[in-house]
């Protein structure tokens, strides 16, 4: 590791951002483990995709912009990609969980679009 002659402000900022991101990732995973039902559990990892990812991304961007040559915006690409794709996955998972809960006869809210898509007609 070659972080010996960094300016102090970069040292402190990158450390705080990385620690914040890792701590938030730990909290999100702890929520995934501790919460009781699936529909509570699905909320916990969202903080990893938003706060933790953006904290670590800003740390990476700042570090490589100062240490490397030029502005290192490639880390922004990952954060944008995650911000676009994680809601898609979560909506799919929620619909799958609702579908399966209705099939198994659990007490969940009824389907509102009965004459809509394929999944609605299957119910």
């Amino acid at each position, binding site marked *: 590791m070659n972080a010996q002659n960094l300016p102090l402000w970069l040292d402190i900022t990158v*450390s705080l951002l990385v620690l914040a991101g890792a701590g938030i990732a730990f909290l999100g995973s702890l929520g995934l483990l501790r919460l009781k039902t699936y529909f509570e559990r699905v909320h916990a*990892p969202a903080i*990893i995709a938003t706060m933790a990812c953006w904290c*670590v991304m800003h740390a990476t961007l700042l570090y490589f912009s100062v240490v490397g040559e030029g502005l290192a915006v490639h880390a922004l690409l*990952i954060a944008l990609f995650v911000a676009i794709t*994680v809601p898609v996955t979560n909506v*799919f*998972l929620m619909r799958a969980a609702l579908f399966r809960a209705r099939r198994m006869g659990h007490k969940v809210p009824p389907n509102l679009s009965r004459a809509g898509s394929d999944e609605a007609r299957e119910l």
Partner: protein
Amino acid sequence: MTPSMLSWALPGALFLIVAAMVLCLVRLLKGPAAQDRVLALDCLYLNGMLLMLVLGIYYGSVHYFEAAMLIALLGFASSTAMAKFLLRGEVIE
């Protein structure tokens, strides 16, 4: 020369992310339904991506960025595929 703050913050962050991955793994192994396991896998790949980014800062190398990008891409594709598989209703026990 004073020891830099990054020299203990980065191993601490790596330890926290690995602990988070262990928590996801516990949920993956004991999740009562299939959607719990898929959600845990989703969380696991996000944590792995963060681990790659922090490792990139730790070793001062930009090559870890490509690994993180690859994990994000494959994780999205696999999570969507598994969620779609659950949505078709072929794995009702």
